[in-house]
């Protein structure tokens, strides 16, 4: 175990002393991030997120004050660039549209939604001013358009948060006034209805501020930043270069004689290969964390929940390392690894959404993107950028860890058939 660690540390040291590698590992993604940031207007007054025209279907079966308010939010002019809403009346038909990949998500506002939230006359008359549990709004998400679906869900969640905050504070105040005898039940009813209406049907502008935003733990609004998509996209693309560079070092060590020398020392093959894998993992992790730190420092980019970021980085590097090992196991020379690695870097970058948002890609590309660590990790980073936390990352993390595990087993099987010292 100690030797595995020592070999890994040695490889990190060697990687960070290689100027050519440093340029591709750190400088290239950083410069590309700046370039794409300029293109998207991130560094000017234009604050476009780079994500636009998300197709969403609104099925308002409530047709009452709150249902209409939510529908108005989706149709508001402030969200016109971000969303492309259509109205439906049939829940099943709307779900079918999602299954057919015609929209990112459908929002179904059930019948009785308003009534379940705004206190009724009988409730105040009975002294039971806290309404029954509200019926739930359904967001039926398209898994192949996870970013768009995530944004729609964030809008609905924020709307519900506002509704819930208003409902609790208003009913508590009115209840206290009524039980202290300062107002009659009839006055409470009138005040409750008015307060509920005021809160729930506030102008779209007052709620728009949170639509493409999410809230931090302390309630501050955080805008979804274009760089929150671009920076991880570039970092992930060049992460693929880093893992292929690490894989290449195994074959380079064989050619330069240090691998045979390791094999005649009292160090077993598992320790050596484990050390090489650990080195790739450490190098990739260091690269990602440096890029995250640098973009936070220089661009004031907020990556989101720190714990989520760290766990997602580890999972992404693990998944990418699996690919690096498979490439190394297939290739015969370090030059082959370099060529395959650079090709994979670009192909996965494109397929994984590093340049163009996956939702704007054909469905078969979206399907194949699932084999790339880029797509899953980018999905996770977008979720974090929208205010998600570690608990929202179960799907990408599970996918990345599974990917890394399967690919590692494949590479072990492939290595088993090769002679490590044969040139």
């Amino acid at each position, binding site marked *: 175990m100690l030797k595995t660690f*020592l070999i890994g540390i040695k490889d990190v*040291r*060697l990687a960070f*002393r290689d100027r050519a590698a440093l340029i591709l590992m750190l400088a290239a993604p950083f410069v590309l991030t700046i370039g794409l940031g300029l293109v998207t207007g991130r560094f000017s007054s234009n604050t476009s997120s780079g994500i636009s025209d998300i197709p969403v279907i609104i099925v308002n079966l409530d047709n009452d004050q709150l249902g209409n308010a939510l529908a108005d939010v989706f149709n508001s002019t402030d969200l016109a660039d971000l969303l492309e809403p259509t109205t439906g009346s049939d829940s099943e038909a709307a779900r079918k549209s999602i299954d057919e990949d015609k929209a990112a998500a459908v929002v179904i506002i059930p019948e009785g939604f308003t009534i379940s939230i705004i206190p009724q006359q009988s409730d105040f008359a009975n002294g039971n001013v806290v309404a029954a549990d509200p019926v739930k709004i359904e967001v039926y998400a398209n898994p192949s358009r996870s970013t768009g679906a995530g944004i729609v869900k964030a809008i609905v969640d924020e709307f519900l948060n506002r509704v819930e905050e208003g409902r609790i504070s208003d009913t508590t105040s009115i209840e206290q006034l009524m039980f202290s005898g300062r107002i009659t039940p009839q006055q409470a009813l009138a005040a409750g209805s008015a307060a509920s209406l005021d809160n729930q049907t506030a102008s779209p502008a007052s709620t728009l501020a949170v639509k493409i935003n999410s809230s931090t733990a302390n309630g501050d609004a955080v805008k979804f930043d274009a760089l929150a998509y671009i920076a991880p996209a570039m970092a992930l693309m060049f992460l693929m270069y880093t893992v292929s560079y690490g894989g290449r070092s195994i074959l380079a060590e064989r050619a*330069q*004689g240090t691998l*045979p020398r390791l094999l*005649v020392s*009292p160090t077993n093959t598992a320790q050596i290969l484990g050390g090489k894998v650990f080195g790739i993992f450490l190098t990739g992790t260091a690269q990602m964390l440096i890029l995250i730190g640098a973009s936070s420092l220089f661009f004031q980019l907020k990556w989101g929940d720190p714990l989520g970021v760290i766990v997602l980085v580890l999972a992404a590097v693990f998944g990418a390392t699996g690919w690096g090992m498979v490439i190394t196991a297939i290739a015969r020379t370090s030059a082959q690894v370099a060529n395959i690695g650079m090709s994979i870097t670009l192909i996965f970058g494109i397929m994984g959404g590093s340049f163009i948002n996956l939702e704007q890609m054909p469905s078969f590309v979206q399907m194949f993107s699932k084999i790339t660590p880029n797509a899953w990790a980018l999905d996770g980073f977008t979720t974090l950028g929208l205010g998600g936390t570690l608990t929202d990352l179960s799907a990408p993390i599970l996918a990345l860890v599974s990917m890394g595990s399967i690919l590692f087993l494949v590479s072990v099987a492939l290595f088993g058939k090769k002679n490590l010292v044969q040139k």
Partner: protein
Amino acid sequence: MSAILQVQNLVKNYGDFKAVKGVSFSIEEGEIFSLLGPNGAGKTTTISILSTLYMPTSGDTTIGGHSITKDPMGVRGIIGVVPQDLALYEDLTARENLIFWGQMYNLSGKSLTTRVDEVLEQIGLTDKAKDRVKTYSGGMKRRVNIGVGLLHKPRLLFMDEPTVGIDPQSRRAILDTVKDLNNQGMTLLYTTHYMEEAEELSHRVGIIDHGEMIAIGTQKELTQQVGEAETLILHIGENDDSEALAKTLKDIQGVQQATAVDHEVSVVCDEAEDVLAAVVTKANDRGIKIRSIDIREPNLEAVFLHLTGRALRD
């Protein structure tokens, strides 16, 4: 003395190609044993098998009581290896290289630091220890390459042609280091295709050719195989046909062998003085100008020539 290494009928095949053909020999504790043979003779393959890098096709070897096939990890703990090609991390300093390799040989803490300092002193690179290896000259790199093999004070050190491609000064330093190590009690297996190195360093020599051990013994024992034969080395002009001259000289009475390498012709004969005049005459007859002639007493070159009909450098 007891044998620290015993090789028993070692065979290594690569498909139809037989790289090592049933080699057997032993090395006594405290001696320098040289494997002498031309390029491609099987020296590096043999040393790679003995150092547990390759598994033999058949046969076995025990080193310090450990079998290379059954207990390779036991073998690795008591041997040191200095490979023919440099096997270092050029982006690390000499000290960093030595520390890393020491850790791979289970050294740690103060004992590692102390040992690294000792080895740096031994290879004369204490002042350059913090420079990256890629900034070193070829000779300095060779010294670090040797230093790595010494870190854990192995009982048996394998050195595979450590002087190939370096300047005479560095070569001299390496040969002196080998002798020093042996004087300190270390046993060495040294492979070379330079007869002079084998003669200078070795207590015993094994001559290997085409994967077979064709002779083994002390230098005296080996030269006795060619009797009292002497060797004439004829240095001829660059444009002269050395092959044709060698073929002609074989006809002279008293000449045992005649071979040509580059612009030299080696003539093994019973008595140099008896054939010298005839050799010069034959050369003149062919219009070949002899620039100089060396007369050598029986040596390993002559032994190899006697046994194989070829020069070591063929």
